[in-house]
Structure formats: structure tokens, C-alpha cells
């Protein structure tokens, strides 16, 4: 073995660029979208990024399907808001900026406590235990109103003591930047973990737990440590949420929140590190914006989830990476037209279906308002035959066109992939 082999460590420009852009994006986002509503959303996105990345330590990196991860972010929230209230009451000298860390420690503690049981098993059993623990904590939240605040939740005030360097955390923009700093640091930390012995063994446990036991590692220990890491970061997200909303209600430990983590991490793409970041953005957009626009938002969400599971099980991140590969071989140009056609026709289908869904909701939920409704500026008669006929017509035509373009796209995509494979083989032969 060449003991004196010269090791050249290039300065990884690409990585520095990506992290730099991520930091820059977090820093300038509130300058681009200045409204109060946008700032609320950005704050929530920052929190959701930490939570989704924490969840993906289990799902994407460890192959652990948890149905109860809101337990750790939620309990982090509660501990954080109680700590904040103690600080407000002068019982505790703790700067507000460190309150999210209290949430993190709480998440770590409960993950250590409950995870010891959960991570004894893998696969379906693991999933069922997390579900059970989720329900357990949820029912506890109803039984212990002193801690969980009952139906009204626990409120707090994040302005504690005198402002330090003009920062009181009163204005939302100051909280946003606190969240942004936590978000960046946590993202870097979680990425770093993926590049350590534990991080790699976690992937190995995901791929083949049986073999891991025969190369000296206890799968249970690997899962347990990963579970605690995940719980810690989930707790930080919970603590940030407590500061951001200044109220924590029992729903933060509920099954709906756990389900949202799973759903959006999956949508974003669990197989790539950055997938959950996309998932977090989608989560906030869906939960805040979409629910604002339409009462049928859960229905749309379900439809989107269904189509993603069927056609792109790797999530948005894998779609991006597949196209980047095509682009890297300079073949993306050939697919442009097909993409435009696909986008156009699917927009037609979606629009038509949306019109029908909205008309049903209008008829069912707003009978007092009469059959007239406005949708995207157009006035429709929800009971009129022509609007139903029109919508159905749009769906049918664009659906048929979509299927045609999808087939030709599939052929093109297959051709391109084949060419890339050949190109790889050729390059391999050269080396």
C-alpha cells in the first residue's frame, strides 16, 4: 500500500456555492417578499425545513417509517413555551434566543426515553409502535391540562426583559432571522451527520439490517442514536414554533401533524438530503396558502399525493435529480417541448377537475349564496348544465391530449436514458 500517497483535497467549489446560496436565500427572502403574510409564511417554512429534515433522518436515511414524529417536535414546543414563561416570570435567566435549544434538549430527552422502546423493532412493528406512542402522548395532552394547557393551549410572550443590541424578538422580522439562523445551522449539522460513520451505517441499516449485524454493528443501537438525533432537531423545530406563534396547543403532538411530516417529506423526496427542504416549502404553502384559497384543499392534497406515489415515488427531489442528469449529458433540450405539452395538458385536466370540485363544494356548502360563484375571476353557474358540460369537456380533451403526450414523452425519455447509458459505458471503456 502506498503509505506516502499524495492526497489532493480540492476546495469543493460546488458545495460552498450551494451552502452560500442557501444562506443567501434565507437572508434575502424577507426582502423579496415584504408583506406581513409573506413573513409569517417564511418563518413557518424555516421551522418546517428543520422539522422535515429531522424526520428524514428516520425515513430517508434510516428507512424508519414513523407515524408519530410530532411527539418530539410537539413536546419540544411545550417545554420551550414553559421555559419561555419561566423566563418571563423572572424565574430563569435564559436569553430568548436559546429557548429553541431547550426544545431540542426536550426532544432529545423524549426521543431517548420513548425511542429506546420504538427502535427495538424495525419495519412494520416500528411504524405501529410510533403510531401507538403518538396516540398515547395525544391522549396524555387531554389528561394533563396543567402541562398541555387543555383546549386553549399554553400562551407565552417572547419579549422578555430589555432588548439586547436592539433585538427584542417582538417584531416578526427579528424572529424570522432567529429562525433562519437556526434553520441554517441545523441543516448544516444534519448534512454533516450524513457524512460520518454513524450516518453511513444508518444507510446500511436502511438497506440491509441483517448484514449490518454481521459486520459488527448493533442495528438497534444505530437506529436508537439516529432516533435521538432526529428527536433533537425535531425538538428545535418545536421550540422555534413556540417562539414564532407564542402559543402551543395540543394539536402540535397530534397525528395530523405527524402525518403532515410524513406526507410532505415524501412529496419533497426522502431519497435525497435536500428533498425534505422542498417538502417543507410545499407543506407551508399547502397548509397556509392552499387552505386560504379553497375549502377543498385537503382533497387536492390527497390527489397530488396519489399522483406522486404513482408516477414519481422519489418525490420532487428525484424528479430534479433525474433531469439534472439528463442536462449533464446535454440532452435536456430535446425534452423541452414534451415538458411544455405535459404542463399545458395537465393544467387543463387540473383546471377542469378543480372547477367541478369547487362547484360541488359551492352547491353543498354555500346553498344560501345561490348557484352563482366566481372562480379565478370568472362567474359560473354551479347548477348550470353548461358550466358542468364545459368543465367535463375540458377535462376529457386535455386528459386525452395528456395521455398522448405522456406516451410520446415516455418514449423520448427512454431513448434519452438509453443514450446516456451508452455514453457511460463508452466513457468507462476509455478509462
Amino acid at each position, binding site marked *: *500500500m502506498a503509505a506516502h500517497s499524495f*492526497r489532493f483535497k480540492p476546495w469543493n467549489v460546488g458545495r460552498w456555492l450551494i451552502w452560500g446560496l442557501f444562506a443567501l436565500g434565507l437572508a434575502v427572502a424577507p426582502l423579496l417578499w415584504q408583506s406581513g403574510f409573506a413573513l409569517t409564511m417564511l418563518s413557518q417554512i424555516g421551522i418546517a425545513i428543520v422539522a422535515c429534515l429531522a424526520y428524514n433522518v428516520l425515513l430517508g436515511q434510516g428507512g424508519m417509517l414513523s407515524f408519530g414524529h410530532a411527539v418530539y417536535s410537539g413536546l419540544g414546543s411545550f417545554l420551550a413555551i414553559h421555559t419561555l414563561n419561566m423566563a418571563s416570570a423572572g424565574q430563569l435567566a435564559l436569553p430568548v434566543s436559546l429557548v429553541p435549544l431547550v426544545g431540542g434538549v426536550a426532544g432529545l430527552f423524549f426521543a431517548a426515553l420513548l425511542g429506546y422502546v420504538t427502535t427495538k423493532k424495525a419495519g412494520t412493528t416500528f411504524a405501529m409502535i410510533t403510531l401507538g406512542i403518538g396516540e398515547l402522548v395525544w391522549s396524555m395532552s387531554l389528561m394533563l391540562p396543567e402541562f398541555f394547557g387543555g383546549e386553549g393551549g399554553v400562551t407565552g410572550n417572547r419579549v422578555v426583559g430589555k432588548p439586547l443590541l436592539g433585538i427584542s424578538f417582538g417584531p416578526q422580522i427579528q424572529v424570522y432571522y432567529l429562525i433562519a439562523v437556526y434553520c441554517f445551522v441545523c441543516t448544516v449539522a444534519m448534512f*454533516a*451527520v450524513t*457524512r*460520518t*460513520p*454513524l*450516518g*453511513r*451505517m444508518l*444507510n*446500511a441499516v*436502511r*438497506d*440491509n439490517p*441483517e*448484514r*449490518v*449485524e*454481521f*459486520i*459488527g*454493528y*448493533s442495528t438497534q*443501537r*444505530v437506529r436508537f*442514536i439516529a432516533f435521538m*438525533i432526529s428527536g433533537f432537531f425535531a425538538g428545535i423545530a418545536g421550540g422555534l414554533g413556540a417562539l414564532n406563534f407564542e402559543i402551543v396547543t395540543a394539536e402540535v403532538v397530534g397525528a395530523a401533524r405527524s402525518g403532515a411530516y410524513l406526507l410532505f417529506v415524501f412529496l419533497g423526496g426522502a431519497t435525497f438530503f435536500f428533498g425534505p427542504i422542498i417538502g417543507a416549502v410545499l407543506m407551508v404553502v399547502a397548509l397556509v396558502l392552499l387552505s386560504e384559497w379553497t375549502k377543498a384543499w385537503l382533497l387536492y392534497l390527497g390527489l397530488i399525493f396519489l399522483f406522486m406515489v404513482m408516477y414519481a415515488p422519489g418525490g420532487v427531489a428525484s424528479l430534479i435529480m433525474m433531469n439534472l442528469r439528463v442536462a449533464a449529458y446535454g440532452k435536456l433540450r430535446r425534452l423541452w417541448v414534451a415538458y411544455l405539452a405535459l404542463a399545458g395538458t395537465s393544467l387543463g385536466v387540473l383546471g377542469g377537475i378543480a372547477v367541478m370540485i369547487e362547484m360541488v363544494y359551492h352547491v353543498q356548502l354555500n346553498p344560501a349564496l345561490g348557484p352563482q360563484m366566481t372562480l379565478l375571476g370568472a362567474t359560473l353557474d354551479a347548477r348550470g348544465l353548461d358550466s358542468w358540460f364545459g368543465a367535463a369537456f375540458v377535462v376529457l380533451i386535455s386528459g386525452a391530449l395528456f395521455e398522448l403526450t405522456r406516451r410520446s414523452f415516455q418514449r423520448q425519455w427512454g431513448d434519452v436514458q438509453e443514450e446516456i447509458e451508452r455514453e457511460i459505458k463508452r466513457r*468507462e471503456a476509455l*478509462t
Partner: protein
Amino acid sequence: MTHAIELLDVRKSFGKTEIIRGTSLAVNAGERVAIIGPNGAGKSTLFNLISGRFGLTSGEIKLNGERIDGLKPYEVNRRGLARSFQVSNLFVRLSVFENIRCAVLWSLGYRYAFWKFLADLTDANERAEEVLRMIRLDRRRDVLAMNLTYAEQRALEIGITIAGGASVILLDEPTAGMSKSETQRFVQLIREVTAGKTLLTVEHDMGVVFGLADKIAVLVYGEVLAYDEPEAVRANPRVQEAYLGSVSADHAAGH
């Protein structure tokens, strides 16, 4: 003298069926032992017992003089015993290099560290590269394990097994499913990578057995029928009657 691996009256029952019925076997350090026997003789079960995958019903297993029965597979592995599997058991979504690197981490003392970067672990990376060259997969370094050919997967299976530097190696049908020419090259590879180690292998191919083994143990219905040098085993009438004759006949018929 302590044996590298020693089985004392090992028994294993599944329900009421006794699969291993009082097997005793002692292997000296550095010996290559092939375990042969008809299907259902309990060869793979024996490997599963030694490697800690199953618990024993009764008996003792010693590794370098220390009891290892009742230990978990990872504890057995940490004491210096590694095994391969009949069906390739790889980390399919990791690259060839990562597969090997995972297998060297524990032996180099990195345990569950999440405060050290893999890229900085010079010894682990060099050892992984060395193993890649040994199993001749260095040119396939960055290919995902699932995209390897069958023969390459078998080689990686061996690579993962030997990477941790265990002194006792158990190979469960390493050449299963390989063509004649592949098998020949593979036996050579096994010889190289297990040089100086104690080797136990389950094998069906008699060519491999007689080419590789210093000693042969014949296992029939959970009992060791014979345990001796190849020529002596071949000449043993009980073995011929129970097993070898039929297989040799198969072999001669071009099976």
C-alpha cells in the same frame, strides 16, 4: 492448544425437529475446512449457529477458546469471526466502495461516531480501497451494489466478509450459481483473500472442495459423519455410501 473454532456437542431443534444432532468439530488456526453434505443436512444451519444468527438448543461453541454461543451476531463478529451468505446480502443502495467501507468501520474502532467525517478516516478509506483491489472491483468503485453483475455481487459479498480483518471466515456457498470458468477464478480469489486465515466453507461443487480445502467435514442429518483430509474422506466407505458416491456420479455425468 486452543482451536480457532470448536464445536462441542452442538444441538439445534426447530420445534420438535432436531436439525443439528450433536455436532462436534475442531478447526485449527489457519486451516481451510469445507463442510459438505446432502441438501437439508444442516450445513447452513450450522453456519447460522456459529455466527450467532440462531441460538443453540444445547452445546458449546468456542472461538479461540472463548465461548461465543448465546452472543449476538455483532458480538461474535467483534470477536473476530465474519461470514458471507448464500444469497448475496449487500447494501444495495450504496456504492461498492461504501459497502466495503461500512464493513471496515467497526474493526478500526470508529463505532457509532457522528463527530468524525468519513472523508477524514484515512485508514478506513485506504483499507477499503485495498479490499476493492483484492476483490478486483476497484474499477467498479462508485457503482451501486444493486447494479453489479451476479459474479461481481458475489465478489463484493466476499469483500464485505473479509474487510473487517476477521481471523475466522465462514463462506456459505461462495460459488453458488457461477459458471465453470467464473468458479475457477473465484476459488483463486478466495485463496488469496483468506490467506493466513481460518476458513470454513459450505460448498456443493466437489471441484472447489477438493481444490480449496485442507480438511473436509461431511455432515449428514445433523451429524458429522467424517472429518479428515480430502483423500481420507474420499476413501471413507461410509461417506461414499451416504453422500459422495451419488454426487461424484452426478459430477462425472457433467452435472
